[in-house]
């Protein structure tokens, strides 16, 4: 087994150190959680978005019909609820009091000094060699957060119109998706989108959940509100399906990187390769409808998952562009292949770091932050050129085979099986370390 030790991020005030958890849980817990004990009668705002049967890029055409652009409702709701939690003191620190700067240079990497985020937590062991792991109800998961940490329920509207209910009951049967705060925010508005909370899904992308995340970006309509996803083995710390999101009104370096078009899929989705960026990756954009884009990306993610390749996803530009980055840092770290100097910075290269937003824990690193340093760290995260080509071959097989993009053909069930077997063979021959099953390796920070 390959694993690394790292300080887990405290995303909820109800998240105790592992071990403490589980021991101390009696019924009727009295802390207003989301389990059966506290759920009856509980209410939360509900935002139901309008499903779009068109491309995101066509959305701005609506201005002609309706000259005064409609208020960005989701955006306001999220900001308002988040500010409310801030004034109620639910966060571990005031993230707006954390120093942050754009590092001079061509790409404008962003550095934040955050000395408070990782305090008071013991390092925990994380298995990094399995991208898919079963849900474990004994570990911390989002059904254990307090209701006050949940901002609202988020779902597709049934009648095709935007709907808002300030006080909707939480109907566990109906399995709502919810948006909750991250009590250790890395920027203003840092939230977690938890698809179908009560289904207790493991961290694993499926078509329906990714479409939900993409719709949230579309619906927020703010190019500075991005969603991110970390797979297990690519620095997700909680094995309960979730996306993250926050506001940062500067461009991310990854968004500035030039791209080279590789292919245009049937549904109009353009897939390009990132150029001149330290981490190799793909960019998905366009598509005749939001569903086309969503399905293409989901197919690619599912392919990576079933081939046990850790990856990160960034949804940017109001859901118009999606970056997909397979990575191997945790594996290298577990195998002892990362330099002590890089490990010392304790930067965990998850989706935000890979996109160019570096959260640093030591003032020294913050003051010395340079484009060169950021670049060196991220270069360690990237797959090698050869490996990236191999992985691309798998992805392209997955996204060009099925009837990608043609709408609902995929449903939400177990969409993995169709790509699984044929690619497994290729994978085994090309990258033996990924299937090494028994190796034990611990990296202490």
């Amino acid at each position, binding site marked *: 087994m390959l694993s690394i030790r790292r300080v887990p991020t405290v995303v909820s005030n109800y998240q105790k150190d592992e071990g403490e958890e589980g021991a101390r849980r009696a019924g009727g817990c009295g802390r207003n959680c989301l389990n059966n004990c506290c759920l009856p009668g509980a209410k939360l705002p509900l935002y139901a978005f309008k499903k779009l049967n068109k491309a995101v890029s066509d959305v701005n055409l609506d*201005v002609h019909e309706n000259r005064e652009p409609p208020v960005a409702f989701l955006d306001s709701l999220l900001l308002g609820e988040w500010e409310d939690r801030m004034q109620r003191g639910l966060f571990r620190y005031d993230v707006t009091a954390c120093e942050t700067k754009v590092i001079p240079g061509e790409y404008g990497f962003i550095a934040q000094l955050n000395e408070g985020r990782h305090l008071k937590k013991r390092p925990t062991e994380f298995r990094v060699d399995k991208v898919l792991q079963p849900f474990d109800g004994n570990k911390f998961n989002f059904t254990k957060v307090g209701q006050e940490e949940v901002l609202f329920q988020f779902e597709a509207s049934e009648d095709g119109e935007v709907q808002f*209910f300030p006080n909707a009951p939480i109907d566990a049967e109906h399995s709502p998706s919810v948006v909750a705060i991250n009590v250790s925010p890395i920027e203003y508005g840092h939230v977690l989108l938890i698809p179908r909370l009560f289904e207790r899904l493991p961290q694993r992308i499926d078509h329906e959940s990714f479409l939900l995340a993409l719709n949230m970006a579309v619906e927020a309509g703010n190019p500075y509100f991005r969603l991110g996803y970390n797979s297990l083995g690519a620095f997700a710390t909680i094995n309960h399906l979730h996306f993250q999101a926050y506001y940062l*009104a500067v*461009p991310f370096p990854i968004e500035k990187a030039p791209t080279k078009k590789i292919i245009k899929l049937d549904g109009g989705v353009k897939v390009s390769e990132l150029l001149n960026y330290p981490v190799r990756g793909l960019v998905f954009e366009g598509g005749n409808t939001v569903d086309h884009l969503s399905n293409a990306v989901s197919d690619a993610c599912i392919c990576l998952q079933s081939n046990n390749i850790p990856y990160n996803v960034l949804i940017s530009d109001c859901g118009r562009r999606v970056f997909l980055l397979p990575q191997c840092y945790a594996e290298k770290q577990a195998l002892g292949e990362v330099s002590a100097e890089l490990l010392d910075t304790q930067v965990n290269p998850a989706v935000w770091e890979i996109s160019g937003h570096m959260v640093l824990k030591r003032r020294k690193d913050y003051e010395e932050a340079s484009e060169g340093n950021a670049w060196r760290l991220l270069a360690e995260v990237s797959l090698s050129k050869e490996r990236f080509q191999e992985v691309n071959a798998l992805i392209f097989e997955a996204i060009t085979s099925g009837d990608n993009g043609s709408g609902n053909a995929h449903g939400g069930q177990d969409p993995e099986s169709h790509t699984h077997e044929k690619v497994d063979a290729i994978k085994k021959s090309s990258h033996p370390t990924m299937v090494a099953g028994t190796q034990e390796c611990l990296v202490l920070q």
Partner: protein
Amino acid sequence: MESQVGLIEQSFHSSYSFCVREALVELPDNFTITDPCMSGHPIVFASHGFLKMTGYTETEVIGQNGRIFQGPGTSRRSVMEIREAIREERAIQIHLLNYRKDGTPFWMLFHMCPVFNKEDGRVIHFVGVQVPILRKPRRLGSGSGRNGVDLCEEGSTGMHDVVYGSCRREVCSDSLLELDHVLARESPVDTTNRGCAYAGFEIEEPCEASDMEKRRAVTAINNILSVLTHYSELTGKLVCGKRCSLSGVGLPSSSLNISLGRIKQSFVLIDPYLPDMPVVYASDAFLKLTGYARHEVLGHNYRFLSGLDTDSLTLCQIKESIKMERACTVRILNYRKDRSSFWNILHMSPVRNASGKIAYFVGVQTEEACKKQEEHEMSPEMRQLSAVGAVKVAVRSSSMAAGSSRS
């Protein structure tokens, strides 16, 4: 819309003398002028050439943001570059795919630059010139341009042309050239739906302007700037194309103005470090609520809203929470310019910049009489908090950039 039209007139004539319009109309180029201080950063002037090129009428364009000319084939990376140039108040020259009113796409060389107030160095307008590009295949090696010139999305290698571009280009370059000639002659091609007609069609392939077209853009910008400069001399509010002094003391940069302008609610920013803590930003909704003009508000202490029957204890409470650097909500009797009074539910909160220090206090106003909440609406309290959040994001982010004018 009525008030918007008024604001647009005002935007233009507060800086330039009356005849500026006539002088601009004389210019043959395709260009637009926008006002970053107005909510939504709308177009306040569009030249005849521009209207002819895009097929829109003047009334359809004035008051809109320039992004309405974009469509599915427009490179998002290029749009981001324009967004950032605006945020950083600098000029940019970039190739961009735009769409006419009838949905037909066309390539143009977009050249945009800020117009500064000579006195306080603040950006008062942006000028954008749109030079249509006569499309021809890009030659190897002609890829990278000078600073600020876009590398046509696909990077600067030029390799790409050979590997991916050439075969397709062989197939359709003829028809493309033909199409471009048609487009260049301004005769609408019969397409009803932008995107569909051209989906998968190589109109999206990057395209390079000739040196002549680039020079044309620069010349046009210079001509427009000299007209604006000339007509601003007459009003005494000189403008120029280069930032000539430090940004106005205490006033938010135009990039912050743009982000704040997106926030629809009534709010003001107060600078706690200036003597008497003056208002340094007031939203359009605030002006509408109180009846004051912007210049009557900026630089003045918030107390101009108080009057005879305003409770002095409440005023103390506000002062106290500013001193304690805390958020607070009060109910206060305020007076409009016409001296009519209203109950104001005022929420105040400190706002920090990128270095984590308090830069402003934001005050969000809600008129109590309007407090009837519809069943499916956000509560007024929540709406106030959302404005606070949006202001916090805007202030924090706009002071982050190395080149920002207020840090």
